């Protein structure tokens, strides 16, 4: 009995061992099969060899996709050109009519401490009196900016601007010392207005380099700092040292004479004003430089006074 049991047990273990071996064999058999499958699908995945593009090209042409692509490309090119142009525009140098106003203000900003214009000043309503004088002379649509300064470095001046806008600098100590009326102040500003309109100041400070620089474009080039600095110095030179010529003063005085002659009261005020300035420059050391900048009140009076006739 025992033998029978043993033999059946041996038979069972043998069977299970054979079954396990078969399983291992099956697994080994599958691996090469997978390899062969992989090698078979590989050429199918390499699409380049299989897709015929020439036939698709015809299809794209028929669909108008090529035209669409061209349109998109030109749109992109135009957009890029526009952007490039906009980038280029940022390097524009302002043209003359914009440049001078900005440049005069830049000079005022850079010389704020010398001119002492940042102070609390009373409201004189000078601009109203001056505007009424301009309107009386038939000068319309002119914007004026008056800056009162608390120094005698610049007594009075009109800075270079365009023809629509004028910037005036006027010394408050000068007004107070002379005890000037609004009409007298207006006449001084009017004289400056005529000088600016004739472009004397602008002619002194401009140069060929600056003229060619204005309205140009400096893309790809460095900003010309020296040109700007040199011309700011020229401003200072005209207003603080050199001033205007006798010829220019003569032209301005004779124009004032002809414009004011219609209003005799005004003409007389102008003559009295010149007398006052002449006295001041001869007696007050603080204003001795005035004759150097605006030569000369005495001569101006002589040019104004009617000449005695021979008969």
């Amino acid at each position, binding site marked *: 009995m025992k033998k029978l049991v043993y033999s059946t047990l041996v038979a069972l273990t043998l069977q299970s061992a054979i079954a396990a071996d078969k399983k291992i064999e099956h697994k080994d058999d599958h691996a090469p099969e997978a390899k062969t499958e992989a090698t078979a699908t590989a050429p199918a995945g390499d699409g380049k060899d299989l897709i015929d593009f020439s036939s698709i090209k015809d299809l794209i042409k028929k669909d108008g996709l090529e035209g669409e692509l061209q349109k998109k490309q030109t749109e992109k090119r135009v957009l890029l050109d526009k952007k490039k142009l906009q980038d280029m525009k*940022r*390097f*524009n*140098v*302002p043209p003359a009519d*914009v440049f001078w106003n*900005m440049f005069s*203000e*830049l000079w*005022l*900003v*850079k010389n*704020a401490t010398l001119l002492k*214009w*940042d102070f*609390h*000043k009373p*409201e*004189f309503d*000078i*601009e*109203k009196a*001056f*505007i009424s004088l*301009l*309107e009386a002379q*038939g*000068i*319309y*649509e*002119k*914007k*004026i*900016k*008056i*800056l*009162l300064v608390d120094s005698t470095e610049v007594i009075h001046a009109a800075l270079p601007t365009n023809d629509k806008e004028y910037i005036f600098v006027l010394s408050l100590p000068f007004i107070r010392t002379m005890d000037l009326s609004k009409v007298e102040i207006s006449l001084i500003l009017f004289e400056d207005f005529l000088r600016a309109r004739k472009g004397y100041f602008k002619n002194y400070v401009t140069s060929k380099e600056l003229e060619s620089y204005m309205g140009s474009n*400096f893309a790809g080039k460095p*900003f*010309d*700092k020296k040109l*700007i600095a040199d011309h700011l110095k020229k401003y200072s030179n005209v207003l603080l040292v050199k001033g205007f010529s006798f010829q220019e003063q003569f032209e301005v005085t004779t124009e004032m004479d002809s414009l004011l002659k219609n209003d005799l009261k005004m003409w007389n005020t102008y003559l009295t004003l010149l007398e006052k300035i002449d006295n001041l420059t001869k007696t007050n050391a603080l204003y001795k430089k005035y004759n150097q900048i605006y030569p000369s009140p005495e001569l101006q009076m002589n040019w104004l006074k009617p000449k005695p006739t021979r008969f």
Partner: protein
Amino acid sequence: MSKIILSMMLIFSFNLFAQTTPPATAASSTAMKKTLVSVKYFNQMMGNVHQNASRFSTVMTTISCNHPVKVLKETSTDGKEFMFYGENDWNLVTVGPYDGYIMSAYLSDKKNECFEEEYSKFFDGLELEINDLYYWARLYDQYTQGKSKVNR
């Protein structure tokens, strides 16, 4: 005697009333309601927002061209509306965290052509320092301006 006492009491009561009732103007000025009117743009190169409607009052902040500002109006409790201040040439505005005043002439309804935007690289090339920008803003406070008009 009773008449005198009565009249005395009457005068005293009037005085008391006068002392306890604040003037109408003071009451209205304390309770102003601010409402937004419009958004405007600063039209000068640089400028200042002031604490009061005066060019010499304290500067709260400095703004540059095309900076948007909220223009406000004030309404008092008695329904009066205030939009212009000083000599009618200042607006009450909100700029960032500040409520201050800007000259009305320096505000436009639409965006402006600004120098620093139009000629940005040229403006950068000037290499203006903070001091210069401050003075440029002050310049527009200090100018007295006007324009001659066509005679009609």
